[in-house]
């Protein structure tokens, strides 16, 4: 087969997206939905078909030259390799399921064509990021996913808050994109190319300071997309979008793009030890921050959003610790169980009668179909990291990698990680208890949950439970398949004594148990929410929004006001108006000379004569002076 066919993987969703956007409303609904789902599904199948291309050094495919100027030559090119392949598979697979789910979820929605169009477009953009061979194409996908998330968060645009949330997401991520863009420019200036392969190859002979700078820029770019500190404020608000969107974009795929970027450029990033430490620090802090926030949230989706943030933090820690394999492992498992959780949450919300607030739920165990409880529980235990679930293995691998890192400062990060693990278990079980335990507290009449919404959850549940098999540690007789598959792309291999591994596993288990115990003790039967200052503080995400408003937004608008009103209207236009009125006044003044009386013009004659005579006198005097 011709490797150019690889382009089918991203282009199929694109075509379906365009089809839906242009003529979707004129098509019957069923057809639109079929187009949307089939596009993604086909991409999934194609990925499987093309799997062999990924082996070895991977395969490059070039479509045509995008930009050419002087020695600059940037082409639309794909690179399908061992890092991209599993990611592609995950994205297309999860996306397919979520599309199916969405068909059911968006049943009552009139504007379905726009929804599925954007959803497909998003898949295209995400695949572009994954498969991009050079940074500019990656940047294209990077902005593309931002755009789609903007459009989908604000999908219900009539409520201005949704639109605002979308705008906020777009702007905050764009701030990150600026740094990515600068890094891109710099890399081109340094290496004369934007191809990822070339850059990674040339990274070795760059000055350490430059490497640090580049790493930080890339990190900031990644933080924007992956909602890490300090650019994390948008993710929680992004939950304003429809639940499938949250599941696909803000849990499974887009938010992990940052991690993927760092993994892609790992050869460059890993060269700067300081940079790696910073990455780990950012990850660890974000993980802790988000976990604490998740503890106090009242809306089910916000809890999940913060947990996503926290989990992505873990992935950053993995990258920082040098274990790409660990990062990718957690990325995949997290994609499974978090998508599962979101979709289940969607069902829960339906059941609770479009009720988002945890404190008005409860008792769903008896009300709803019992399968829903089990599905949600599966997701929860994976998230909490109950032993033998996928989440357990992936998180454990990360903690191990951080623990075994030679640099002592990593021990501190490890400690944070452990604490976060505890909190994770805590807020996860809090969630479960608040939703299912006790008596129903809400008034909303339960909506029936359609079949289309239910059955896509099962395969995900299976993946979530068994996903651990992807990279089972040797300790439990696993072959670390993912790690071997990635090979040299997988970062450093974690070599640790079995005893340490065992101790860590024990610790993790203990943490989960502790978390469950606390949750059980506190949330078994519902207690009305406390208004404690700490709770409020956590509820509002450590007041991050207010901080941003004080530090950035207000100065920005103030400057804008100064520029438009102060400078333009006041200074520049004022000067012009001054000149104009000066001319007018001069005219009025000179006009008074013409009194219309003859005597005036006669004396003007005399003055003229006087001037001339005086002038001549001066002339002659000077002449006399000369000679």
């Amino acid at each position, binding site marked *: 087969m011709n490797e150019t066919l690889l382009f089918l993987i991203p282009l199929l969703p694109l075509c379906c997206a365009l089809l839906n956007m242009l003529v979707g409303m004129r098509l019957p609904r069923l057809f639109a939905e079929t187009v949307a789902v089939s596009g993604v599904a086909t991409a999934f199948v194609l990925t499987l078909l093309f799997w062999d291309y990924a082996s070895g050094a991977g395969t490059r495919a070039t479509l045509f030259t995008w930009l050419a*100027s002087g020695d600059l030559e940037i082409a639309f090119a794909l690179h399908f390799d061992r890092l991209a392949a599993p990611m592609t598979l995950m994205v297309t697979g999860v996306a397919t399921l979520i599309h199916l789910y969405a068909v059911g979820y968006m049943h009552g929605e009139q504007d379905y064509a726009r929804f599925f169009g954007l959803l497909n477009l998003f898949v295209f953009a995400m695949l572009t990021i994954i498969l991009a061979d050079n940074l500019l194409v990656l940047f294209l996908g990077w902005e593309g996913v931002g755009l789609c998330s903007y459009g989908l968060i604000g999908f219900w645009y009539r409520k201005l808050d949704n639109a605002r949330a979308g*705008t906020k997401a777009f*702007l905050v991520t*764009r701030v990150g994109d600026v740094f990515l863009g600068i890094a891109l*420019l710099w890399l081109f200036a340094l290496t004369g190319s934007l191809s990822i392969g070339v850059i990674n190859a040339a990274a070795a002979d760059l000055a350490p300071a430059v490497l640090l700078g580049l790493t930080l820029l890339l990190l900031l770019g990644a933080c924007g997309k992956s909602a890490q500190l300090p650019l994390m404020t948008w993710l929680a608000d992004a939950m304003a979008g429809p639940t499938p969107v949250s599941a696909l974009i803000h849990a499974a795929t887009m938010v992990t793009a940052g991690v993927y970027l760092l993994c892609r450029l790992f050869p460059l990033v890993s060269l700067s030890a300081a940079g790696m430490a910073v990455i780990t620090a950012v990850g660890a802090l974000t993980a802790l921050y988000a976990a604490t926030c998740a503890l106090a949230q009242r809306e089910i989706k916000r809890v999940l959003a913060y947990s996503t943030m926290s989990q992505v933090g873990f992935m950053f820690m993995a990258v920082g610790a040098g274990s790409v394999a660990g990062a990718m492992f957690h990325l995949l498992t997290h994609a499974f169980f978090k998508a599962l959780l979101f979709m289940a949450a969607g069902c829960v919300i339906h059941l609770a009668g479009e009720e988002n607030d945890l404190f008005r739920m409860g008792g769903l165990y008896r009300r709803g179909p019992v399968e829903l409880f089990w599905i949600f529980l599966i997701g929860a235990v994976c998230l909490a990291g109950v032993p033998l679930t996928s989440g357990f293995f992936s998180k454990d691998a990360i903690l191990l990698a951080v623990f075994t890192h030679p640099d002592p400062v990593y021990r501190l990060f490890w400690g944070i990680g452990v604490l976060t693990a505890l909190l994770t278990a805590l807020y996860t079980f809090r969630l479960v208890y608040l939703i299912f335990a006790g008596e129903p507290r809400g008034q909303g009449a339960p909506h029936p949950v359609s079949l289309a919404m239910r059955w896509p959850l099962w395969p995900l549940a299976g993946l979530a439970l068994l996903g651990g098999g992807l990279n089972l540690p040797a300790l439990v007789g696993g072959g670390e398949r993912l790690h071997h598959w990635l090979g040299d792309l997988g970062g450093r291999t974690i070599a640790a004594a079995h005893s340490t591994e065992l101790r860590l596993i024990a610790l993790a288990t203990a943490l989960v148990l502790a978390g469950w115990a606390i949750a059980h003790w506190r949330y078994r039967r519902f207690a009305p929410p406390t208004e404690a200052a700490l709770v409020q503080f956590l509820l509002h995400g450590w007041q991050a929004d207010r901080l941003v408003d004080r530090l950035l937004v207000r100065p920005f608008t103030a400057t*804008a006001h100064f*520029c*438009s009103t102060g400078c333009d209207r006041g200074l*520049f236009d004022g000067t012009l108006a001054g000149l104009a009125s000066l001319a007018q006044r001069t005219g009025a003044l000179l006009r008074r000379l013409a009194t219309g009386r003859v005597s005036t013009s006669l004396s003007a004659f005399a003055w003229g004569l006087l001037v001339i005579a005086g002038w001549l006198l001066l002339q002659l005097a000077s002449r006399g002076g000369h000679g």
Partner: protein
Amino acid sequence: MTLTTALPSFPWLSLLIFLPLAGALLCLLHHRQATECRWLALGTTLATFTVTVWLFCIHGEGAAGWLRYEEATWVGAYGIRYSLALDGIALLMVLLTALLQVVGVLLAWSVQRQTGLFLALLLTMESGLLGIFLAHDLVLFYLFWEIALIPMFFLIGVWGHERRRQAALKFFLYTLAGSLCMLVAIIALYLIHGEQTGHYSFLLSDLLQTRLTTAQEFWLFAGFLAAFAIKSPIVPLHTWLPDALTEAPAVGSVDLTGLLIKTGIYGLLRFAFPLFPVATATFLPILGVLALIGLFHAAWSAFRQDDIKRLLAYSSISHLGLVLLGLAAWTLTAWQGSLLLMVTHGITTGALFALVSMIRQRTGSRDLRQLGGLWSQAPCLSAFFLLFALASLGLPGLANFAGEILVLLGTFATHPFWAAFGMLGVVFAAAYMLRLVQGVLWGEPGPATAGAAAIADLDAREWLILVPLALITLWLGLYPAPLLRPLEQPVLALLGGLP
């Protein structure tokens, strides 16, 4: 190719300039019958566009030196010659002009009052603009420079909105002040050259041979700069543009933002830079800083505007800041990016202005606080609006991004920090553009939107205007190579001029 060899001496460039003039005269003669005038104007602009496209087809590869050259004596007494020259850069601008004028005529279809005169002025301006881009004799250039001015003055003043008179007067006098300085500089240069060589001529190619002292260079350069900086407009000489753009009728805004302000930049790189290399070399850093100031100042100001047209006007200034930044960087990539950005900005912003006029026709308002929720009433219109807004905020894959990234890549090579700041400007663009989109499309229908009984979606004419522009936006976003190719040689030639 065969056709060119068949007609080697046919004056295509003169045809380009005089075709619209002829159309204008015919429109004047038939100014009573509006419909005839419309079709006449459309035919003329289409014919002109065809000629330009044909020129582009045969000269698309680009070449060193002039692609076409036509010359005749005009005023023997002063050695003024009627001389037109076409190179890759001019080709691009001519193409843009012809295209936008076709759009303009389609837009002007809805003009009811004195349609004939309106179209006549439009066509006159087209030939003026084409002349600016083609003129190779400085007096001829000045002539076209002013000729393009007066129709715009009337377009704003007669068919404009509320404060049209003040805006028209401000626009005209402000620009004229600069032009007069340029006139002095032109004559002075001519005299200096004549005294040196004894051969009095206004031809650019002759004047390029002039040997100037540094002081002379600076003064003359200042003269040229005055005209071009006001036209471009470079902050702080920009305040005429928001007023003019806001008050102008739709077509006026399109031409003003799409073409007229581009003439300033074109003048800079065609005349000011090559004629005065030393002064240019000293001035470039200042230009870069001014460009950045303009970029941010305008973006900030745009963020505060509630009148859509004002907002777009400031966004134009901001974009031109980026263009100037590219020029100041003085590298091939940056220049190609700047020129590309000029074209793409003309198309996207032009389309946006067209859309604003459509919105205003439907809702009777241009005020962000009055509008809103348009998507629910006119999804197609809104979709186009969103598309061009995204293009204008530099979304990859759409037209502007190609130019912007080239500018930034080219600039980073020589001035990393300029480029970094330029990149930062991208967020600013997003800030005001998203505010615009949010105010127009999202939310509950605003007073104006709700007030208008039923807001019709696009009609056939508007589809005809928007679809080609949208296609071009996509095409230039994904495959700008055809436009970049003819630029390479002339840009390299211009860049070589610096000591």
